[in-house]
């Protein structure tokens, strides 16, 4: 097993002042999708493109495609299921992620 310090990302001398994030919007680089145990699956037959999933998603993973459907970006989706819960048409199902 390696020593604890081998897991450190940077030297303490390189920690930014106050541990601030000086580059705005860099959370895009933090791939949170691998936390997910359920993934949202959209049934386009039922979807009315109302955009509730887009509005309510706490991680802003939903974007509209060319046809107007809202699609979750699984790089960031944590699988919280809020979209499925708020969908008025029951068009989103949470499906277990297979390991």
């Amino acid at each position, binding site marked *: 097993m390696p020593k*604890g*310090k081998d*897991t450190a990302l*940077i030297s303490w001398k*390189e920690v930014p002042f106050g*541990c*601030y*994030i000086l580059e*705005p919007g860099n959370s895009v680089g933090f791939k949170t999708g691998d936390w997910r145990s359920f993934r949202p699956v959209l049934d386009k037959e039922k979807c009315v493109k109302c955009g509730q999933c887009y509005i309510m998603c706490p991680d802003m993973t939903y974007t509209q495609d060319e046809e107007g459907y809202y699609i979750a970006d699984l790089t960031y989706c944590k699988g919280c299921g809020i979209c499925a819960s708020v969908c008025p048409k029951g068009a989103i199902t949470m499906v277990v992620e297979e390991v």
Partner: protein
Amino acid sequence: MGKRIAKEVSIAIAEAVKQCRVDVIAAYPITPQTHIVEHLSELVANGELDAEYITVESEHSAISACLGSVATGARTFTSTASQGLALMHEILFIAPALRLPVVMVVANRALSAPISIWNDHGDIMAERDIGWIQTFAENGQEAVDLVYHAFRVAEDRRVMFPAIVNIDGFTLSHMIEPIELPDQEQVDRYLPPFRPRYKLDPRKPLSMGPVGIPEIYTEAKKAQDEAFKNAYKVILKAWDEFEEVFGRRYRPVETYRMEDAEVALLIMGSLAETAMTAVDRMREAGKRVGLVRLRLWRPFPLRDFVKAVKGLKVLAVIDRALSPGATGGPVGTEVRSALYQVPGRPRVVNFIAGLGGRDVTVEDFEEMADRAYVYMKKKPKEPYEMIGVKE
């Protein structure tokens, strides 16, 4: 230079904060801090101080507002005591980690229970490890002077840490003393406008207070600790500059009649004035007793302290807070640890005194010094003992 005028210490502190051209005050009134913030709110309401006075519903909100305020680059002040300080607890650690230089005066008061509005150091000792710069004032003039110093040091770009000035509740906060307030021009010379290294500014966005995963937390704390230790030099230099501008000299460790002393009392805060009288009386009686007072508590002035107690046989540390079940009071354990590696160190004996407003008289100090003489030859049975308890 201003004239020495009799003033209540709390009022003088508020006037000093005004002279520091503070931008924001967020505070919640609590005995015995009340007069400080009451007078500041008056100054703001009367248009004598151009600042925002944020009235809040609790101390937790007061300190939270202060952090937000100072993060935008506004000079920020708050003050509290006892339960109020305890209510601030979880936010207090965040200020130094985010390098937010709030200045706070704590009018030290005992913690409940039993309910006590009176003076001891239990409130601040519970906040020992928050990572703020902490000083203890002995008298009204020093309390005021430490406020200018606190802003000067905290906001220094090499420091950027919050600072607490401790004043004993009632025995300092409500005392009327002759106090010299400097001219505004002197204060302006000593304290330049606050220009933080970074601030919250929509034109130049940044994030303060992100999560620290295990792969970064240790490095972040190490960086904070190193920066805090480095603040020591600036604290000293700011006292040198203080002397140049205002003429009064302050050091992190004060000594009184320590030449050839074999026994010394060690204390923080206003009780040291009573202790000086006790030392005088014992010196007259031919006892080689001196006094050491810590003005700077955090960062701990290790080297200056070790130098100050060199040659002593017994050091009697007087704590004004109880640490139940510990090996001493907070100052006692600190000092024992500080001296452990020092060859020829004095024996450290620890007394707990002056809890919840209990008077500690000249006679009490003489008793402690006499016991210290007994312990010169005989090891104390207990690591600490309480003084002035009625059996």
